[in-house]
């Protein structure tokens, strides 16, 4: 085979997908003075990365192949991995796919969104570094490489959080994120070192071969360190305040990256850690840990989000709430649960990306994201409103959008688990998940009333619809939200189920790298059977017929023959009813819209407000306490 053709073989695509991003970052740093060159380079590298990842779907997702790639051809010698390896199974590819899509859309959006900022060259360099870091993390087959990528992405994310450093809180958020992120990274490093001391290898597959069954105190401590380390990357409780700060302060395109991509890398790390390296997920207590942390994240963050006054900060808390769903479902250790969790992870990237971009569009046009200062934008920005509503319905799980499809699977999985294990705790998880969903809906009703509906403040009269490029980026996400919601069968059978199956085939993962997997149980029988039924296409069809019938009747009976104000003439008939008074500006909205709810929970909200003090020492303390607890847990349980 000639070298050229060899180089085009899909075996090399993973490293290409990572390298084009880093190469793009480098080239932009060098040649990025010209705006056109910069945009072209950025678009080229993200498109190429997306293309490489898409090309891998066929062999890896559908063909079930596991790509083991040794950099420089340094294959293991004497049974020990000595080179750096990439290993791409369906799970890695699944996360890489999420990353590539989110990076692509975010990049497209950035071109218009960041146009008015200076230092655009640095922005794109860091943006591509962040993308490359996450891509490298999920495709890596090597624990130390994962650490390096974690550092790269943390570094880039911190720098990007502080990018608009004149904005309120950007620097503060970046600093807090840096401190706790570095505690997390140090945890990962120490954990890696301790695993290396015990197993003398850094290769994930070989660790997975050696570790289970040979646990001692050092490896148990290493487990806790790695768990907490990846937990900081996923921003699960107790690291959620940092997510809120960082997402809220960063430019919207970076919020998409942090919430859609960075948190996923943490989830990926936790899955690799628990399912592969230590293979402890069959322990009930281990499932308890993940489900407990997940449910806690789910509930605390949704209630925190309800109390927020800032659009992006609210979205940030929701982000972690949805990550809680993912972690809970993954922690069930059932095929349906893992599949549901991964599905939700994917959907979360799509709808949360859409929502952050919509928030960015609002910020771009109005200059604020304070819910108390906005209102009535639906008349000025109709397309953004529609796109936002699609995202809001998706995240709140309104059928037929994608959030419903995956949440519905999560409920099925948790309740099934509860019934199968006879453990009433999982029942509580189901209830928390369902209640969280309606609270999510409530806070998005708050946002839509406070930002897009209601009355338009005087200061926002000049607002225009955002440019086509930004709407295009949002449109891609919205389209994907609808498609993945309408065809859950296709998505699960071609994307999430291969990935979920990969989670349960540790033996293949080990043997693909050329190690002996005889000590590991072969792939267990994986069943994705559901209990419930949900056919979105048929439902939509019926709804359309019904809607059509109603509309025909309505139009025939002159429903749309309405009287509306013509011209600018003031006619009291078309004023709003104010009990007879002249119409004046009065917008009902803002953070405290649901006082009826908050009143009953005031003790809880006061407590939470005091807890999220904003002092970096407190957050560091949480991290340390969390580390201590997980360490204690793993020493007792493992």
């Amino acid at each position, binding site marked *: 085979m000639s070298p050229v053709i060899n180089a085009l073989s899909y075996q090399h695509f993973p490293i290409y997908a990572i390298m084009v991003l880093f190469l793009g970052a480098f080239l932009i740093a060098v040649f990025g003075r010209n705006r056109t060159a910069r945009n072209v380079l950025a678009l080229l590298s993200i498109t190429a990365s997306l293309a490489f990842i898409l090309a891998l779907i066929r062999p890896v997702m559908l063909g079930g192949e596991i790509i083991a790639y040794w950099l420089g051809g340094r294959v293991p010698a004497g049974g020990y991995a000595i080179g750096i390896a990439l290993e791409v199974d369906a799970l890695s590819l699944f996360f890489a796919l999420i990353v590539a899509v989110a990076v692509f859309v975010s990049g497209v959006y950035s071109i218009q969104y960041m146009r008015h900022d200076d230092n655009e060259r640095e922005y794109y360099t860091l943006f591509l570094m962040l993308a490359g870091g996450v891509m490298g993390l999920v495709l890596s087959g090597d624990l130390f490489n994962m650490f390096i990528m974690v550092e790269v992405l943390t570094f880039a994310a911190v720098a990007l959080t502080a990018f608009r450093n004149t904005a309120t809180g950007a620097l503060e958020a970046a600093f807090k994120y840096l401190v706790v992120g570095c505690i997390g990274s140090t945890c990962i490093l120490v954990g890696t070192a301790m695993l290396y001391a015990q197993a003398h290898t850094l290769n994930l597959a070989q660790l997975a071969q050696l570790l289970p069954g040979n646990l001692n105190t050092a490896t148990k401590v290493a487990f806790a360190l790695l768990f907490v380390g990846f937990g900081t990357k996923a921003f699960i409780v107790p690291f959620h305040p940092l997510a809120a700060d960082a997402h809220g302060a960063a430019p919207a395109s970076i919020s998409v990256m942090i919430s859609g991509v960075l948190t996923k890398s943490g989830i990926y790390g936790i899955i690799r850690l628990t399912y592969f390296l230590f293979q402890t997920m069959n322990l009930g207590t281990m499932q308890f840990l993940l489900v407990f942390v997940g449910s806690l994240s789910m509930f605390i963050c949704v209630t925190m989000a309800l109390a927020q006054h800032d659009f992006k900060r609210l979205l940030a808390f929701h982000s972690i709430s949805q990550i809680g769903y993912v972690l809970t479902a993954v922690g069930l250790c059932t095929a349906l649960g893992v599949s549901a969790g991964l599905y939700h992870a994917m959907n979360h990237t799509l709808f949360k990306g859409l929502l952050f971009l919509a928030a960015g569009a609002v910020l771009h046009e109005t200059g604020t994201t304070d819910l108390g200062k906005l209102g009535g934008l639906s008349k000025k920005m109709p397309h953004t409103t529609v796109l936002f509503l699609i995202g809001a319905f998706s995240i709140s799980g309104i059928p037929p959008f994608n959030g419903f499809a995956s949440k519905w699977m999560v409920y099925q999985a948790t309740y099934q688990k509860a019934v199968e294990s006879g453990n009433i705790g999982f029942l509580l998880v189901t209830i928390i998940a369902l209640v969280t969903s309606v609270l999510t809906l409530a806070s998005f009703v708050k946002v839509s009333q406070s930002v897009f509906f209601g009355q338009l403040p005087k200061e926002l009269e000049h607002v225009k619809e955002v440019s086509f490029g930004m709407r295009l980026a949002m449109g891609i996400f919205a389209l994907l939200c609808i498609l993945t919601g309408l065809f859950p069968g296709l998505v699960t059978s071609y994307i999430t189920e291969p990935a979920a199956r990969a989670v349960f085939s540790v033996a293949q993962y080990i043997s693909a790298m050329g190690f002996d997997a005889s000590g590991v149980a072969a792939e267990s029988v994986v069943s994705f059977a559901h209990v419930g039924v949900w056919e979105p296409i048929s439902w939509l069809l019926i709804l359309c017929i019904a809607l059509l019938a109603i509309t025909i009747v309505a139009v025939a009976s002159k429903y749309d023959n309405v009287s509306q104000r013509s011209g600018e003439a003031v006619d*009291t*008939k078309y004023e709003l*009813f104010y009990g*007879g*008074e002249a119409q004046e500006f009065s917008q009902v909205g803002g953070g405290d819209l649901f006082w009826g709810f908050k009143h009953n929970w005031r003790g809880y909200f006061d407590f939470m407000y005091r807890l999220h003090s904003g002092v970096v020492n407190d957050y560091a303390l949480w991290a340390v306490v969390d580390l201590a607890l997980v360490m204690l847990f793993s020493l007792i349980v493992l």
Partner: protein
Amino acid sequence: MFKKLIQESMGKSPWLFHINAGSCNGCDIELVSVLTPRYDAERLGFKLAGSPRHADIVVVTGPVTKQSLPRVLRAISQVPEPRCIVTMGSCPQSGNVFRGSYSVAGPLSKYVHVDVDVAGCAPKPEAVIDGLALATQILKEKRGQMK
């Protein structure tokens, strides 16, 4: 057929919006008493609506003070067509004992077309129901004249 159905329904489901234009509250209480079990105007389909957008019949009580006049007119203008305006009690028709006061702008008929006047201070509930029933007939006619 539908047009006829709608026109018939128009006479059977009149919703009231009550405006107090400076009344002494006597008429207001009498209007509420019309809805009590004893007189039960709901058997004719009457219902008090919360917003003028929902109303068919606007019931105005009180002598229409200068303060209330713009508000009364604004609220009346917000009632969708077809609509009927009923004045209740003598005040909105003539000013009653408040006539000639510096603060009274009435009678109401100076400003809008009034369909039914129910006189009395305060009118008896039977009279109110009679007046409202007359108003529903006018409402039906107005609907018939609409396209």
